[in-house]
């Protein structure tokens, strides 16, 4: 059985549109302790990270300020990791422009938590062309060379082609040619990109930012189809995390009277493909959900 932990921070938006950072930090603590069964954060992290790991936190900032992994969400995780873990931490995505537009302050050369894009001078893409099944890509040198462990800290949202974009599809931002992988509802490409060595060997954890969920007309932001859900979703199983994310989107769609993704012929079929490839569980019967409300 795979486990997915959902932490709901009921009052996380009590300050309006700003995230209450104390509640957010509490959500993280609760998420990690519930997921790992450990009581101390340090022990939680040591259960899936090595002491000298260089950790990459892959975020998704393509949607701009309104519908990207929020800076508070990424930095809260990064600080929590740095306080309880010795290794270097890099918060990263494709481009510095997208990071800035999503509200991140870049830091590639000072101490502390690094925040930068693959297009930073001297970073770029690895020269090794990775050829695997239907994939032929160059990987960001951050993912391929600079880190030893990876956390996919993705925004959970509807996607016009993939159906749902979440933790696995977030890694499209680690390859140089994601535009080539959107045919046929991104299937089998999402699963196959994840199955490449630079991702599969390093991925340790999926966390989905579901504080505000775009449940229709994604991946762009449309306020009328975005809902404050105030949740973070945690799982060591990348397929299970995304499958539960999909169900959450379906519930929101049903509640708002929208057809299901299946009815719109864009269900995220890549999840079944990923399951068949042995990457995790898409079958809801094999997933245990632990839900905690703050």
């Amino acid at each position, binding site marked *: 059985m795979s486990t997915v932990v959902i932490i709901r921070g009921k009052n996380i938006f009590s300050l309006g549109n700003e995230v209450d950072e104390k509640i957010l930090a509490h959500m993280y603590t609760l998420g990690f302790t519930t997921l790992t069964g450990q009581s101390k954060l340090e022990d939680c992290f040591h259960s899936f990270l090595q002491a000298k790991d260089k950790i990459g936190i892959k975020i998704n900032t*393509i*949607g*701009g300020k309104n519908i990207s992994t929020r800076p508070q969400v990424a930095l809260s995780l990064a600080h929590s990791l740095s306080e309880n873990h010795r290794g270097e931490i890099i918060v990263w995505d494709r*481009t*510095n*422009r997208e990071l800035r537009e999503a509200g991140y302050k870049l830091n590639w050369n000072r101490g502390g938590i690094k925040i930068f894009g*693959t*297009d*930073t*001078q*001297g*970073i*770029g*893409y690895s*020269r090794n*062309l990775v*050829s695997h099944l239907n994939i*032929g890509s*160059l990987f960001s040198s951050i993912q391929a060379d600079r880190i030893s462990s990876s956390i996919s800290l993705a925004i959970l949202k509807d996607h*016009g082609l993939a159906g749902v974009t979440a933790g696995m599809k977030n890694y499209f931002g680690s390859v*140089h*040619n994601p*535009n*080539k992988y*959107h*045919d046929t509802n991104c299937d089998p490409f999402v699963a196959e990109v994840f199955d490449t060595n630079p991702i599969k060997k390093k991925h340790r954890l999926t966390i989905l930012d579901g504080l505000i969920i775009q449940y229709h*007309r*994604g*991946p*762009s*932001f*449309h306020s009328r189809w975005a809902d404050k859900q105030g949740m973070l979703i945690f799982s060591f199983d990348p397929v299970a995390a995304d499958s539960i994310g999909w169900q959450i989107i379906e519930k929101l769609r049903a509640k708002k009277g929208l057809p299901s993704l299946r009815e719109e012929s864009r269900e995220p079929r890549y999840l079944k493909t990923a399951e068949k490839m042995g990457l995790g569980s898409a079958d809801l019967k094999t997933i245990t959900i632990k839900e905690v409300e703050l």
Partner: protein
Amino acid sequence: MKTAGAAGTMTCSGLAAMLTEMHAFSQESNLSKIEARFYEKHPDREIECTLCPRLCKLGDKERGYCGVRENIGGTYYTLVYGKVCSSHIDPIEKKPLFHFLPSSNALSIATAGCNVNCKFCQNWEISQVRPEQIRHVDFPPEAVVLTAEKNNCPVIAYTYSEPVVFYEYMFDTSQMARNKNIKNAVITGGHINPEPLVELTKVVDAIKVDLKAFSQEFYSKYVRGELKPVLEAIKIIAKSDVWLEIVYLVIPTLNDKPSDIRKLSRWLLQEVGPDVPVHFSRFHPMYLMKNLPPTPISTLVEAYQIAKEVGLRYVYIGNVPGHKFENTYCPNCQNLIIERIQYRIGKIEMLEGKCKFCDNPIPGVWA
């Protein structure tokens, strides 16, 4: 002996040749933002690109399959207008165009991007990347035309990657070139919709179509595109005033069946006619297809013979320097009328577009 002008690298305006370094260059801010042609606006800032058969439907901030056209706030833009990543002066024979101003030099330009993803692409370092991932220079249409003039290039070739994805730039440059009596040649996979293609045929002089195979299965598996629109494109070009040549890259075990070659040849004979030059080119392992050997020359010769048997008059084999089937023979008297040694011209035995030996007219653009 008449020789083609030496192929050379452009040096004018600091243009560098074939810059394929894959490090990041942070050139994002230097991309163009010229509104694209051929798209429809939809509600909620969504658009549908109608340039090529993919018909990409894109939300705000998304790019098409080509990676060089982006929806920004509900308006679709080309990001590569005048952003040249590769520029050479090539002999026209290198395109290959064999019946189009032989031995002339073509100022050849490309931007990043392609609307298919061939597993055997020779230029994937520029065709399969986004423009900000590769070094490029500003080379606006007027500068291209001026450079062609200064370097005695009677032809500008849009080539190397896939010119369909830089349509607006190619179109405007072609129009300007025409005004200076410079001809335009397009080297394409032919994955383009009829309307933009018809428009294009009004401003260009020659199109070489890379027909990758004659089966949809091959196109799905190895090209990630559609065969039918390519065949439609060939028919449209054939009906226009634009000179057309076809290249078929013969890949061992994948598209080299004699029955496929025969079907292809019959289709060309029926739809385009016997005079369209057809080049059967030799495959070399590269990009994502390194597991196959180079095409045996005997396979190319067999393809040549099949096409001739079917009734095509001007059949060539390519990427086999010095082979006799790189030459043009008069279909009437069988004499050698254009001798080629790789990209150089040995001799031309023609006068005013006719065979010097028997006066048979040879189709093509000769002056």
